[in-house]
């Protein structure tokens, strides 16, 4: 094999497979070699499925040779965050609680991809039970960023984002409760897609917070995300775009944000304007409620999901998830109901915004990915705990359930990626995907990849 097998898009790789220029076995061998090379420095995987992936690749190769093509993902390697159940393969959710759990069945999303002929390479690193924005994990070690391994890959789907950025598999499935697909996508310079709440099937996915958990997709380009969504009947429409109206949520953008990140965000907006978009300030004074109300719901529901398990085996739980479960114990039903009432009104208000704009735009993360192991960082002159700062711009769409996408839009002077986040209205997934595709074309990222790839 003389070509760079990790560089093509899904569409290009599918074409190459159809022509016989490359085989599924070659693609999987190449991805496994990259995975072995990257694992010591990036810790992308909790479980690598070398034997199973090679066997699935041989099966796909034989099927393709017989003309039994199952679609564009047939024979292409991918990964899933280790919160998705996989039949016959241990599924830890990043926890010691489940370190020996081998499910009998695949999660629905994994079963769909298996039926589409995609080849599962491995189960990627995650914060314990997907709780945490950095992929810190005291049981399986921290995830690391392929652009600079001294920095976090974002989280909690950090292993998925790092693997995609490092060219290990064409895409990955992650989960997003408060930004856990979009944050690592931004930190690792890839595309992160969170559909409308409930858009992708979550049966068989370890739960963190029932009314917030959303399955999402990470890939190197928007078209790859679209090809994956096609498997679920959620691909975009081939629609021409009128003048794009981009809303700037002024109150949210007053939140602390690193000046270099803000400058890259403003540069991305300038590129959209140069391409014909109109940027309009949008005042949403109530938007400040998203972060606290989303946190309260998330802690309460984490307690509901994990409280009984914690009571039985507290010693197996790491500090971050234990804290969430304990905080949930101190929230009253009255307070939880208030948060859900606020959410109901908030979501109606947030839907109303889209009568005057097509998307809302925010930086995905307010800072560049912080160093591994750092608890506090300085943002615009203030010391703020890392766990509090990273999700400030992603909680809005988690709270409303609206679809959102993180697009890479630049590198800091230190060479760390920065993301642009676009949010659309509930159910507006197809249009948002079309818009993301158009925006990607003018942001100037041009498929940049880390040296680790």
């Amino acid at each position, binding site marked *: 094999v003389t070509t760079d097998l990790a560089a093509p898009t899904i569409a290009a790789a599918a074409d190459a497979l159809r022509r016989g220029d490359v085989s599924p076995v070659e693609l999987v061998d190449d991805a496994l070699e990259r995975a072995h090379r990257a694992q010591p420095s990036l810790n992308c995987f909790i479980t690598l499925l070398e034997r199973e992936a090679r066997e699935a690749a041989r099966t796909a190769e034989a099927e393709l040779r017989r003309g039994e093509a199952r679609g564009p993902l047939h024979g292409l390697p991918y990964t899933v965050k280790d919160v998705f159940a996989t039949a016959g393969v241990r599924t830890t959710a990043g926890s010691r609680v489940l370190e020996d759990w081998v499910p009998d069945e695949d999660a629905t999303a994994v079963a769909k991809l298996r039926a589409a002929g995609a080849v599962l390479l491995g189960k990627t690193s995650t914060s314990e039970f997907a709780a945490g924005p950095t992929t810190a994990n005291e049981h399986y070690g921290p995830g690391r960023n392929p652009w600079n391994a001294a920095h976090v890959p974002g989280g909690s789907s950090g292993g998925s984002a790092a693997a995609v950025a490092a060219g290990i598999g064409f895409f990955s499935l992650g989960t997003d409760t408060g930004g856990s697909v979009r944050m690592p996508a931004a930190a690792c310079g890839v595309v992160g897609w969170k559909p409308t709440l409930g858009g992708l099937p979550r049966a068989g996915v370890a739960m963190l917070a029932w009314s917030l958990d959303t399955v999402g997709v990470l890939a190197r380009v928007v078209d790859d995300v679209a090809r994956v969504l096609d498997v679920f009947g959620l691909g975009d429409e081939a629609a021409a775009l009128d003048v794009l109206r981009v809303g700037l949520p002024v109150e949210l953008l007053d939140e602390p944000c690193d000046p270099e990140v803000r400058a890259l965000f403003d540069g991305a907006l300038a590129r959209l304007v140069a391409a014909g978009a109109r940027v309009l300030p949008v005042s949403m004074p*109530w938007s400040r*409620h998203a972060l*606290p*109300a989303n*946190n*309260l719901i998330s*802690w309460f529901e984490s307690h509901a999901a994990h*409280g009984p398990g*914690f*009571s*039985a085996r*507290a*010693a197996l*739980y790491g500090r971050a998830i*234990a*804290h969430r479960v*304990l*905080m949930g*114990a*101190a*929230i*009253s039903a009255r*307070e939880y*109901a*208030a*948060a859900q*009432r*606020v959410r*109901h*009104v*908030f979501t*109606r*208000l947030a839907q109303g915004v889209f009568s005057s704009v097509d998307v809302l735009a925010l930086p995905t993360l307010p800072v560049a990915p912080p160093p591994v192991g750092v608890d506090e960082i300085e943002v615009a002159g203030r010391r703020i705990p890392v766990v509090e700062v990273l999700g400030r711009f992603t909680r809005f769409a988690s709270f409303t359930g609206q679809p959102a996408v993180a697009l890479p839009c630049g590198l800091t002077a230190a060479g760390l990626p920065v993301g642009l986040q676009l949010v659309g209205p509930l159910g507006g997934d197809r249009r948002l995907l079309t818009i993301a595709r158009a925006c990607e074309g003018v942001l100037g990222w041009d498929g940049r990849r880390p040296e680790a790839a």
Partner: protein
Amino acid sequence: LIRAFAQGAGHAIPPEEAETLAAAVERVAAHVLAAEAELVADPSTFAPAYLS
């Protein structure tokens, strides 16, 4: 509540750590109740004040 739940689960948590968690919950819950008062006119009828 945090200390009681931890104790019931056999989970040792230093008092100051429990206090920090409790303070975070109190802060967030106070914000949420204030937000409810701002956005929801009458929780019993679920009328959203902001939309009226």
